[in-house]
C-alpha cells in the first residue's frame, strides 16, 4: 500500500499534522529539552564568558561570536534527535501503526522532516531570544534572515539524521554514530571559532560544513547586518541533498526496497 486514500484531507494539512505530531513528541520528553537548555546556558554564560577573557581577537567579540555559534550548534544538535525517534519507533513497533495512517508515504516523509525542523526551531527560539536581547540584536530583517538560516540547517540535519537512523541497524552503534556525526559537524565548523584559527587540516573542510554555512549566515546577518548569499546557497544545497537521501533511504526501509 504505497498510496492511501487521502481525499478527505488536503495534502498540506496531512503533512502539517505529521509535523505537529513530531513537535508534540519532543515536548513530551522534557528531559531532552532540560538537558540541552542547561548545556546551552552553561556553555554560553560560564564557558564562553570565562574563556573570552583569555581570547583577544581584534575586531571580534568572542563572547558574542560564541553565543551566536552556540545557538547554531544547538539547533543542529536538537535536529539530530528526530533520528533517535525514528529508530525507536521502528524498534518498538510504532512505525507499523504510523504506516496504517491515511497518509501517503511521500507526505509522511516530508511531514517527518518538516516536523524535525519545526520542533528544532520552536525549541531554539527562546535561546535565540536570550542571545538577541543580551547582545542587542533588534533589526527585524537580519533576525529573520538568521532564523531562515537556522531553519534550513535544521531541515537538512533532520534529513541527515533520518538517513543514519534508517541505515544503521544496531542500537548501540546508532547512538555512537549519531553522537560522532553531531560532534564532527559542530566542531569542524566555524560556529564556535573563526576560520583563521582552525588548524589547516580541518580548515580545508570546515567552510563546507552545513553548520558553518548557518553560522556564517547568522553572524553576517546579526553582527555585520549583511546577507551572506553563498552561505545560504550552501544551506539550500545541503537541504536538497540530505532530504533527498533521507527520503530515499526511508522509502527503501518502509517498502523493503520498492520506491513509492
Amino acid at each position, binding site marked *: 500500500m504505497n498510496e492511501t486514500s487521502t481525499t478527505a484531507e488536503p495534502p498540506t494539512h496531512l503533512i502539517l499534522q505529521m509535523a505537529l505530531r513530531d513537535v508534540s513528541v519532543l515536548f513530551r520528553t522534557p528531559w531532552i529539552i532540560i538537558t540541552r537548555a*542547561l548545556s546551552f546556558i552553561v556553555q554560553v554564560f560560564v564557558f564562553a564568558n570565562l574563556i573570552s577573557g*583569555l581570547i583577544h581577537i581584534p575586531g571580534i567579540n568572542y563572547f558574542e561570536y560564541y553565543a551566536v555559534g552556540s545557538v547554531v550548534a544547538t539547533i543542529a544538535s536538537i535536529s539530530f534527535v528526530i533520528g533517535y525517534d525514528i529508530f525507536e519507533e521502528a524498534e518498538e513497533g510504532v512505525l507499523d501503526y504510523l504506516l496504517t495512517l491515511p497518509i501517503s508515504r511521500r507526505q509522511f516523509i516530508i511531514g517527518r522532516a518538516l516536523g524535525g525542523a519545526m520542533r528544532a526551531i520552536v525549541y531554539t527560539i527562546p535561546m535565540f531570544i536570550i542571545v538577541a536581547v543580551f547582545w542587542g540584536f533588534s533589526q527585524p530583517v537580519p533576525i529573520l534572515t538568521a532564523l531562515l538560516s537556522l531553519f534550513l540547517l535544521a531541515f537538512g540535519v533532520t534529513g541527515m539524521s533520518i538517513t543514519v537512523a534508517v541505515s544503521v541497524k544496531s542500537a548501540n552503534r546508532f547512538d555512537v554514530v549519531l553522537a560522532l556525526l553531531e560532534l564532527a559537524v559542530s566542531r569542524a565548523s566555524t560556529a564556535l571559532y573563526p576560520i583563521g584559527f582552525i588548524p589547516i587540516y580541518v580548515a580545508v573542510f570546515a567552510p563546507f560544513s552545513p553548520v558553518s554555512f548557518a553560522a556564517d549566515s547568522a553572524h553576517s546577518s546579526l553582527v555585520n547586518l549583511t546577507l551572506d548569499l553563498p552561505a545560504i546557497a550552501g544551506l539550500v544545497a545541503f537541504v536538497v541533498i540530505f532530504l533527498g537521501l533521507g527520503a530515499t533511504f526511508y522509502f527503501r526501509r518502509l517498502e523493503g526496497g520498492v520506491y513509492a
Partner: protein
Amino acid sequence: MSNTRLIPLIIERDVRILFSDAFLVAIMFANFSIDLFVTAATFGRLVTGQGANYFLYIAPGSNLITAMVAAFQSGRDVWREKYIKDLTSYLLTLPVQRPVLAFSRVLGGVVRSVIATFPGTLVICYLYGILFTPKIFIAYLIVGLFSLGIVGLSMAISAFSSSIEMWVTVRSAIQLYLSFLSALFYPVSVFPSFLAPIVSSNPMTWAIQAFRQLSPISFAQVPAGDSLGSIATLAGPSLAFALLGTVCYIWYSKL
C-alpha cells in the same frame, strides 16, 4: 571458588561486553581525536598569554573526557541489564557475595575505561614527552582513579533512574559539571568566588592538575612539583563515589 578469585572473572565479563562491539571503542577514539586535534588545537591557537602552550594545557582534558564517556557507558550497561535485558536476577544467582559482585562491577568499569583511553593516554604522554619514562604509569593511574569515581557515579544514577531519558539527563548534567565547572579549560582563579568551592571539589580539576604536573612544561597557575598531592586529593572523591556506586548497586539489586 573463593570470592576474591571470582573478581577477575566478573571484570573479564565486563571487558568482554565492551569488546562485544569493537566499533564502539574505535568511535570513542574518534571522539577523542576530534576533541584533541580539532577543538583543543583550535583553542590552542585562540588563547594567548597563558605563559605556555594552551593546547598542551587542555590536551589531557580530551583524554579525561573520553574516560568519562567510557565510565558512563559502564553505568549505562548496568542500567540496560536491569531494565532492558532483565539480567539482574541471573547475576544475583552467581556464587559471589553481593558486595564483592558490586565492587567488581565498579572495578570492571574502571578497567574498561582505562582500555578505552589506552591510545589516548599514549598520545598525551607523547605530547608531554613522558612516553618512555616511568611517569607513563602515573598517567594511567590518574586515568584509573578518575574513572573509579565516574563509574561509581554512573552506577549510582542507574540505581535511581527508571527511564533512559532520566538517566541520560542526569549523565549530561554531571558531564557539564565535570567539563565546564572544572579547571579543564582555565585555572580555578578565573571563576567567580562563589563558584570556586564547586570547581575545587570537582574530580576533573584534580585529575587534570595531576596530569599537567607530569609535564616538564610549567603551566601558569599549576603548582610545580610531582603529581602525588593532586592524586591524593583526587583519591578522596573517587573512592567516595566508588563506594556510593557499590552501595547503590547492592541496594537496587535487592529491588
